[in-house]
C-alpha cells in the first residue's frame, strides 16, 4: 500500500468507497505496481479478496506483498484471499490433460471462442462464500482484482466476451454485493492508420465508461528518465448521482518498498 497514493485518492484501509470499479491501464509502461498497492490495501482493510493472477505466479505477488507488509500465504490460509493461479495451471488445460471440475475457470484457454462464463462462475462462487472460515470470521466487503485482463485477448478471447464478463462481475460485485473491483488492462500504442477493431484499446475504452475511477500510467511524453519512471493520470468519473469528471496528472517513481507520487515538475531529481 502506498501512503502517498492513498492521500491522492483520499482513501485509507479504514475508510474507502464501496461499490467502486477502478480501472488501471497503461500504455508502453507497466502499471502492475498499482495492483500490488490495491492487493495490500484491501487485505489490510480486512476485505475478502478474489485475485485472478493471470500473468504471474503466486510467489511473485507473495514476495512483493511481503515487502509491503502483508502475508499472502497467511491470508490464503485464513480464507481471506482466493487466488486463481492462471499462468501455471493453463499449461495443463491447454494440453488437455486436466479436464476436471477444478479447471473450469480456465476453460477459455482451451476454447477461447466460448467466452468467460467458467471464470465468472468461479468469481461468483468464491465471493458468495463469505463467513465460511473455520473461525467464523466475517470479512469486509468482497473485492475482485484482475491482473491482467488484456492477456485474454492474446489467448483469442474476443473483446465482446471480455466486456460481457466485466459487466456480469460489476453487476454481482459492485451492485449486488456492494464490493469493489480493480482491473488492470494493458494497451497498445495508438496507431493512427490502424483502426484497432479487436484490440486492447477497444477494451480499455469500453471499460473506462463502466468505471468510477481510472488510473492510466504512461511514460513521460518528453522521453526516458531514470529518476521519474512515468506519469499517472487519475480520472475521477461518475459516482452515483455526482458526475465529477476531474483529471489530474502525477509523476511517480517506483522503488523497492513502494512508490512515490509527486506533482509534475517537483521530482527531487529536478529541484
Amino acid at each position, binding site marked *: 500500500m502506498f501512503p502517498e497514493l492513498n492521500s491522492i485518492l483520499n482513501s485509507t484501509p479504514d475508510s474507502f468507497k464501496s461499490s467502486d470499479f477502478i480501472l488501471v491501464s497503461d500504455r508502453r509502461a*507497466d502499471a502492475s505496481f498499482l495492483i500490488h498497492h490495491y492487493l495490500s490495501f484491501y487485505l489490510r482493510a480486512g476485505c475478502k479478496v478474489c485475485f485472478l493472477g493471470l500473468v504471474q505466479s503466486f*510467489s511473485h505477488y507473495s514476495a512483493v506483498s511481503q515487502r509491503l507488509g502483508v502475508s499472502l500465504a497467511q491470508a490464503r490460509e485464513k480464507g481471506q484471499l482466493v487466488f486463481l493461479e492462471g499462468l501455471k495451471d*493453463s499449461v495443463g488445460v491447454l*494440453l488437455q490433460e486436466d479436464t476436471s471440475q477444478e479447471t473450469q475457470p480456465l476453460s477459455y484457454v482451451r476454447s477461447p471462442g466460448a467466452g468467460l462464463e467458467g471464470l465468472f462462475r468461479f468469481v461468483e462462487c468464491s465471493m458468495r462464500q463469505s463467513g465460511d472460515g473455520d473461525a467464523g470470521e466475517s470479512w469486509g466487503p468482497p473485492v475482485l482484482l484482475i491482473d491482467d485482463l488484456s*492477456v485474454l485477448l*492474446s489467448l483469442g478471447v474476443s473483446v465482446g466476451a471480455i466486456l460481457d464478463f466485466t459487466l456480469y462481475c460489476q453487476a454481482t460485485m459492485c451492485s449486488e454485493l456492494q464490493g469493489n473491483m480493480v482491473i488492470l488492462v494493458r494497451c497498445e500504442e495508438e496507431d493512427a492508420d490502424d483502426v484497432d477493431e479487436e484490440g486492447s484499446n477497444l477494451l480499455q475504452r469500453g471499460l473506462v465508461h463502466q468505471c468510477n475511477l481510472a488510473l492510466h500510467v504512461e511514460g513521460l511524453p518528453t522521453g526516458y528518465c531514470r529518476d521519474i519512471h512515468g506519469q499517472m493520470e487519475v480520472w475521477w468519473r461518475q459516482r452515483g448521482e455526482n458526475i465529477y469528471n476531474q483529471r489530474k496528472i502525477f509523476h511517480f517513481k*517506483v522503488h523497492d518498498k513502494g512508490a512515490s507520487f509527486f506533482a509534475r515538475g517537483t521530482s527531487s531529481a529536478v529541484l
Partner: protein
Amino acid sequence: MAAPVSGMAGSTSTGNATSFQKKPRRKLVSIPGTRPSVQNGQLLVSSGVSSLDYVIGGGLAVGTLLLVEEDRYDSYSHMLLRYFLAEGVVCGHELFLASARDHPDEIVQELPSPIVDDVAGMKISEGQSQPSDPENPDTMKIAWRYQNQPRYILFLSCSFSPLPVPYHALLKSIQTVIRKEGFDGSTPQSKVRNVLRLGLHSLGSVLWGDDVCCKDNPAHCHALTTFLYALRGLLRTSLSVAMVTVPSHLIQNRAVMGRIIRLSDTAIALESFRGSEKETNPLYKDYHGLLHVRQLPRLNCLSCEVPDTKDLAFKLKRKQFTIESRWFPSMAV
C-alpha cells in the same frame, strides 16, 4: 531443500568462556552455472555474452523467457542463440533446441568454443567456430525437429486445440522433457539439480506452420501468443530458461508484436546495419548494429533494473560479441 549443517556443538566443550554459538549455516544447494542476483536474490544464468548479461540486469533469471527480435538476415540473433547454447554446454546444463529451418545437429556442431584465459602464456583462443565436442554427450538433450516426429504424436494432438499442430507438439515435447528429467522438482533426491536451457529458433516464421509473419490478418493470430503464454507457465514451474527468437521484422501487425513482448519477461531487439544506409554512416562505423532493450522483467519485486542509457550498439570482433553505449563507448554501459 537446504539441510542445515549442525552447529558447532563442540564449542562449549573447548573451555571457551563465551556461550556464543555459531549459527548453523544453511548449506545452499548450488546449481553449477548459476549465481544469485545482487538486486533481488533471483537465481541467474549467463546468456553467453557478458555485456548482454550486464544490460539485462546481471543475467537471465531461471524460470524466465528471453525474447530476441531477429535482425533482418538472422545473423546476429542466430549467433546469440549459439552463444546461449554454448554457455549451457560449458556450465554443464541440459539443452533443448528446436528449429524448423536448420537441423538442430548442425547448429550444435557449430557452437563457439569458450575463450580461454591462460596466464601461462598460451595463445588466447578467440572462440573460433570449430565443431565443439561436448565432453559428455549425455548432457545434451536431444534436439527436436517437428518434421521428424513419428506420425502418431501428430495424430494425438490434432483436434480441439487453439494451437496449430507444430506449436502444440513442441509444447508437449517440452513439458515431457521437463517432467521426465525432473526439472520441475518431481525427481527423487538422488539426482543432482540442473538447469534446462531451451533454445527456440525463429518462432512465428512460416516454417512453423504459422502465418503471423506473412499476412496482415493471419488466421493463426493467437497461435504464437498462446504458445508463449503457456511456455512461460511451464518455465515458472521448473528450473529452466528459454531463449526464443522471433522474426519481428516480418510481422506486420504492431499490436501482435506488442503482445508478444509483454508475454515475455526480457525482450531485446537487434537491428543490424548490414544492407541499410546506416552501414556507410560514419557515426556507426565501429559497430555492426543497434541493440534495443524492449522490456526488463520485474521479478518478485516492485522495481526493475533501470538502465543508464537506452542507446546501445553491438559489434562482433573476431567472434566476440560486445555491447556498448553508443555515445560513450569507453565508459561502462
